[in-house]
């Protein structure tokens, strides 16, 4: 058991970090595809070695800390985002028995960890001591806190249906039917909230390069910038895998492939959807984003929870 445990941790870390790095390549290729271009195609087969080149480049960039920055916090902030997202992966069941920590409050742990991510943005923006960074951080904080609220509420639908917070058990509970069907509304809300939570396009308002230079990470360069970069890709992977776990039956699938492969395939589909969103969506205004969250998604998620509970009660009766 002990050996298996370390294998799982090692395997998960290895896969995740490589996935995040690979996403650099994947995203560029996909965007290029949808824009009728090639994208990176020079380094290695299909340009896959761009990942290596990019990483090397980031390592060799000047590791610059602005003299006016709050140095300790400035260094600390990018680490937070990577750490919190990696922690959240601890509860994700990649396959039967492939999970780092099979907690009975797994879902709550995920919510807690993704909430921690906001610190990296706020601290990074604050420590930069730069007006654009601070504006980006302020936007990031309000956006993430707002969307977290109904992200949690949307997930409660699945909890109500499965009767557990344990993610493994939620997957098991979908053997009969994926929750996407009873929880279509919940899925949509979670999906939108997930984009906002990872501040991906179209909700990349904390960055908003056309208004705020680069938002909260304006002052970051080198590997510290790289951490934010990796954190973002890890975030996409996390949200995609949570969608798969909660609504698309996790590792479940026809038996000709092992469960973990099904999980990975499903996750990549959603990662691709994230990239498609980036390729096709315009960025909303900041106030539009907040209004949409509080005035539309929030009531909808409450309704979803209410409806699910009511139906569950009716059926159980």
């Amino acid at each position, binding site marked *: 058991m002990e050996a298996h445990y370390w294998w799982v941790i090692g395997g998960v870390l290895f896969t995740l970090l490589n996935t995040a790095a690979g996403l650099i390549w994947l995203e560029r290729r996909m965007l290029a*595809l949808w824009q009728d*271009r090639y994208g990176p195609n020079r380094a290695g087969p299909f340009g896959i070695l761009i990942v290596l080149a990019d990483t090397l480049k980031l390592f060799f960039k000047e590791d610059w800390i602005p003299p006016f920055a709050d140095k300790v916090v400035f260094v600390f902030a990018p680490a937070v985002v990577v750490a919190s997202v990696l922690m959240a992966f601890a509860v994700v069941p990649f396959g039967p028995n492939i999970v780092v920590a099979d907690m009975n409050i797994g879902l709550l742990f995920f919510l807690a960890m993704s909430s921690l991510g906001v610190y990296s943005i706020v601290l990074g923006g604050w420590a930069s001591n730069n007006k654009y960074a601070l504006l980006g951080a302020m936007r990031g904080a309000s956006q993430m806190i707002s969307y977290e609220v109904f992200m949690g509420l949307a997930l409660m639908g699945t909890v109500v249906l499965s009767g557990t917070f344990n993610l493994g058990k939620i997957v098991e509970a979908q053997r009969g039917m994926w929750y996407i069907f009873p929880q279509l509304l919940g899925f949509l809300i979670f999906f939108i909230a997930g984009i906002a939570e990872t501040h991906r396009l179209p909700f990349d308002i904390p960055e908003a390069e056309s208004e705020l230079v680069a938002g909260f990470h304006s002052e970051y360069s080198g590997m510290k910038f790289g951490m934010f970069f990796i954190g973002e890709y890890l975030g996409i992977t996390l949200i995609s895998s949570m969608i798969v776990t909660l609504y698309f039956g996790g590792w479940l699938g026809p038996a000709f492939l092992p469960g973990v492969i099904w999980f990975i395939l499903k996750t990549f589909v959603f990662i691709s959807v994230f990239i498609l969103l980036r390729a096709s*969506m315009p960025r909303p205004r900041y106030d539009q984003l907040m209004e949409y969250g509080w005035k539309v998604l929030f009531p909808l998620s409450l309704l979803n929870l209410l409806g699910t509970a009511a139906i569950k009660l009716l059926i159980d009766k």
Partner: protein
Amino acid sequence: MFSLLRSMWLVFLHTFHKRETYQYPEEKAPLPARWRGRIALTRDPDGGERCVGCYLCAAACPVDCISLQATEAPDGRRYPSFFRINFSRCIFCGFCEEACPTYAIQLLPDFEMAEYDRQNLVYEKEDLLINSEGKYPGYNYYRVAGMAIAGKDKGEAQHEEPPVDVRSLLP
């Protein structure tokens, strides 16, 4: 909401479109003749330097990356004793070409001038001067302007009468 989904779908359909990329450097993009690339100093049909050192290109340059010194040859032609363009500053806006009254400075369809050392982007006159009339064949400033040079005296330019005899009172 529908429009968003529709645009997502339309973007997705691009998966099946042909790619537009030119695979430079194996495959060169066709550049139009008036492409604003590398700057050159051309020569007139007689093979003389067209540039007369009037400083208008330098004055027109928004990044002030042209500097020169005008001087006069014994035959009366003016020319730049040095002519320097700092291509590390040049934005290829083409204002210098527009300002040039003698068609001397011209932007050519060539952009392959990258260097590893920025210093190599400073072009002197010998780097700029080409053995061609460029885009305006046949134009010779001194044939149009009233200034006398060796081989073209006063009154021998286009639309000029022979010089006046100031000692004559005849109309």
